[in-house]
């Protein structure tokens, strides 16, 4: 501020003048002589109090008037701390990108969260818009959404900001910025600006793109803070397995992990240190109430310190359907796939099944089914598998020579439309697995150089339906996965028999089985979803979430609902109830902000300290004060009770 600003503000010191005058006047009145004072009755204390109150009101009015006068004098020189657009005469196309991800719930600035401050900043920016400006609002929580398409109706923008609420979504700043650019690109205004109101913490370290239209006006939001979260709490009959994770600057050490039924603490353990850890809490198997796991203590985001315990349900087994005679190992014992599943030490039992049951209800105990080179499925088996998949089951189908020799009437629907063919060893000798793709990662390297005696080959139509995890080096599918109903199927084009290939001897074999078991566990009811992800529900479904009812809408022929917050959601469809749990996204715990572009806090001709002419507001306030004083004086003079 210049000298003139300080000088003008210094006038505010004159606010004490009325008080000094008041004191002087009162002291003078204290000594007022009067010859006949003996004849003057003293007044009631009530009257004196009323007189003092009136004096104070007038004093307050006058002091405020002097302060406002000082402000009015300094207004042309004072930079207001409100956010505003430093603009020329032309209209502006403005896109407000508001981050509504979970990290914006952090309260590192006092009582209000980052999201609340971002919304306040957006409102301040809206107050500096003028007629002819276009405003759009984009939300940067994953997936990015357009909350308000570009509009010249500023009131609509204000109303939109009023309706925004924080969520537990992940952050997708890049997606939101791309969406914002596409919104402003088609607008006629020459001055286009994208304002990003975010903490810039989206789990990545890459700097923001150096876009001349981009402005990050609130540098106080991107600040790295520490936070720990309960990622999952899964209940088996006798225990609850809890996964916790912490951001780089935080540790859960010293905090407690409590298992609660309502607010009653049922079990408690000390949280281990480290960025990622899991603990096990004992539980009474007979307990049927809804349980929560709570991490005590305080960190930046309180909402992710509590997680609903997921009941794993009655599916506690993996069923293995195969020919136990042919697949037995040379040293005896269970087939190799059963031994491999047991070696994974999952808490799921491995049960051999000679035949599929005729009723799908009999498959309820099975989280997943492994078919090792089956000679096709009978019509009854196909119906059971179809129902099983529709209810969320996971199937692993290993294809071998027997599969290619499926008898008449047997087929692999709904997994495959056509019976696969079996290529002999001569044609596959030099065609081993091509690694480096798919979700198995480095484990797939161990599958390179397989020495199979043959391989199954899917029809082209069938192969195209699968997501390709691993391929043979000459192109055909080796391992694939596809969604079927609520469930999913994995197919591998080699059987698990040792006399057909050395696949079971490779570490990659265990990786494949582990992936299968993980998917089977994830499909166990109730299911766990990421915040902000949309789920498919029945048209008649009624969804109740932690903050009330959730609506769903038909989209591309199916009803979909978005679950934006962490917590337990109960979905009722007629007489059936399904529970879904939304868990924190580990990526959102990485609260290190991305670097803003150089000078990104004050680009595009706008700055948080931009001049804002508020003279008319102060002048109006002065007029009101003067009017109030006049009214008060008239009131005091005319009201006999106060005279």
């Amino acid at each position, binding site marked *: 501020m210049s000298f003139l600003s300080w000088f003008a503000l210094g006038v505010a010191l004159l606010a004490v003048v009325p008080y000094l005058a008041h004191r002087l006047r009162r002291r003078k*009145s204290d*000594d007022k*002589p*009067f*010859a*006949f*004072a003996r004849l*003057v009755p003293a007044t009631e204390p009530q009257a*004196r109090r009323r007189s003092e109150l009136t004096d104070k009101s007038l004093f307050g009015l006058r002091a405020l008037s002097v302060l406002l006068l000082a402000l009015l004098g300094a207004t042309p020189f004072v930079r207001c701390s409100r956010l505003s657009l430093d603009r020329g005469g032309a209209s502006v196309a403005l896109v407000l990108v508001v981050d509504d991800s979970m990290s914006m719930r952090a309260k590192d600035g006092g009582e209000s969260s980052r999201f609340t401050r971002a919304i306040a900043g957006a409102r301040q920016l809206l107050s500096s818009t003028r007629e002819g400006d276009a405003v759009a609002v984009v939300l940067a929580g994953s997936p990015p959404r357009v909350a308000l398409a570009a509009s010249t109706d500023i009131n609509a923008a204000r109303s939109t900001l009023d309706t925004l609420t924080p969520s537990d979504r992940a952050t997708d700043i890049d997606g939101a910025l791309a969406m914002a650019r596409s919104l402003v690109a088609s607008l006629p205004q020459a001055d286009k600006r994208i304002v990003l109101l975010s903490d810039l913490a989206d789990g990545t370290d890459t700097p923001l793109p150096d876009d001349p239209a981009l402005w990050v006006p609130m540098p106080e939001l991107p600040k790295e803070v520490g936070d720990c979260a309960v990622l999952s709490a899964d209940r088996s009959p006798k225990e609850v397995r809890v996964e916790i994770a912490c951001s780089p600057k935080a540790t859960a050490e010293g905090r407690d992990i409590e298992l609660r039924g309502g607010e009653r603490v049922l079990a408690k353990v000390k949280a281990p240190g480290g960025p990622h850890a899991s603990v096990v809490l004992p539980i009474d198997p007979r307990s049927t109430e809804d349980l929560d796991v709570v991490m005590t203590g305080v960190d930046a985001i309180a909402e992710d310190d509590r997680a609903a315990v997921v009941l794993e349900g009655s599916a506690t087994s993996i069923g293995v359907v195969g020919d136990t005679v042919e697949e037995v190992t040379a040293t005896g014992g269970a087939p190799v796939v059963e031994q491999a599943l047991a070696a994974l030490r999952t808490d799921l039992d491995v049960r051999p099944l000679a035949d599929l049951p005729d009723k799908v209800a009999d498959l309820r105990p099975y989280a997943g089914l492994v078919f090792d080179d089956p000679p096709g499925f009978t019509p009854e088996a196909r119906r059971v598998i179809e129902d099983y998949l529709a209810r969320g089951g996971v199937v692993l189908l290993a294809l071998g020579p027997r599969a290619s020799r499926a008898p008449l009437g047997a087929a692999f629907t709904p997994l495959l439309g056509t019976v696969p063919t079996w290529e002999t060893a001569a044609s596959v000798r030099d065609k081993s697995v091509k690694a480096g793709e798919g979700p198995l990662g480095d484990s797939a390297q161990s599958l390179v150089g397989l020495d199979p005696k043959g391989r199954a080959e899917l029809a082209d139509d069938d192969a195209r339906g699968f997501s390709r995890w691993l391929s043979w080096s000459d192109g055909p599918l080796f391992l694939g996965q596809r969604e079927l109903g609520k469930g999913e199927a994995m197919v591998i084009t080699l059987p698990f028999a040792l006399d057909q290939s050395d696949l079971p001897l490779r570490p990659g074999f265990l990786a494949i089985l582990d992936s299968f078991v993980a998917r089977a566990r994830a499909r166990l009811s109730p299911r766990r979803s990421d915040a902000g992800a949309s789920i498919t529900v029945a048209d008649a479904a009624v969804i109740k979430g932690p903050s009330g009812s959730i609506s769903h809408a038909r989209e591309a022929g199916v009803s979909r609902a978005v679950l934006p917050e962490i917590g337990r959601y109960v979905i009722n469809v007629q007489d059936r109830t399904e529970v879904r749990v939304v868990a924190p996204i580990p990526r959102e715990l990485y609260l290190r902000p991305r670097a803003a572009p150089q000078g990104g806090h004050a680009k595009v001709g706008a700055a948080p300290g931009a001049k804002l002419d508020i003279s008319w507001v102060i002048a109006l306030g002065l007029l009101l004060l003067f009017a109030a004083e006049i009214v008060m004086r008239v009131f005091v003079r005319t009201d006999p009770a106060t005279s």
Partner: protein
Amino acid sequence: MTKEIHRTLDWGQLAPLRLRAKMVAEGVYAGAHRSARKGAGVEFGGHREYTPGDDLRWLDRRSMMLHDRLLIRQFETETDRALRVVVDATASMGYRGTRGKAAKLAWAALIAAALAKVATSSGDPIGLTFIGGGKTARPVPVGSGREAFERVASSLEQIDAVGDPKLDPDLVERALGGIVRAARRGSIVVVLSDLCDLPSRALDALAAVSSRGRVLVVGEVLDPDELDFPFDEAVRLKAMEGELVVETDGQVRERYLAALAEHRDKWKRAITSRGAEVVTLRTDGDLSHSVREIIDRASRVRA
């Protein structure tokens, strides 16, 4: 610890005293002043009602026996023509309100000087005495001529409002005692006072002055603010005599005016019952009119 209020007398618009007194006196018709007065003498001049203190030698016994009334016989005679002015210079007389032209004591001093000028112009002797005034009070013995006026004016110019009758109850008796002893029948005594906080025994002293054929006129000097209490907002009033402090505001106006009226009425009744007259003198009034009023009242008493 309270601080005594003492201020130099506020002369307001009345200074210089001598010049003002002459101007006022010129406004009063001096020719109306007659030196021939009724009283003890050789040529019968009529009767009047007996008042306590009258010389019993002049009681008309025949009239008493015939009519059962106490009458005093009066005769045309050359009487004491002296005018004695008593000015109250206690602290309360130093008060000046917002509308008064000067302090009450200054107003009384100017009236006294104007009376002195009228008297000396008519050849009558003039004397001056003070109630209170402390060391500034310098009484002037009865004298005639221009020199007497000068002495009176000089004494009045130096007077200040000092003294508290409550602390010194004999203040009034000391001032009036000399007059009672020296003044003869027919002499006129004018007391200029606000009658504020005077002790009750002051009434006895005034009664003694008005006896024995002496004419007593009391000029009640009051400030307009004392008469209508103009205060609206909260105010702390401190008595000018004593340590009394009253916190008050405009709410008490009616009660104060009632108390003042009762106080004035008490004094007026007590004074007039002794054959004297009371004249109210407002410090925002007309000086010539006030002096004429005093002279007229004195004439009325004598008649």
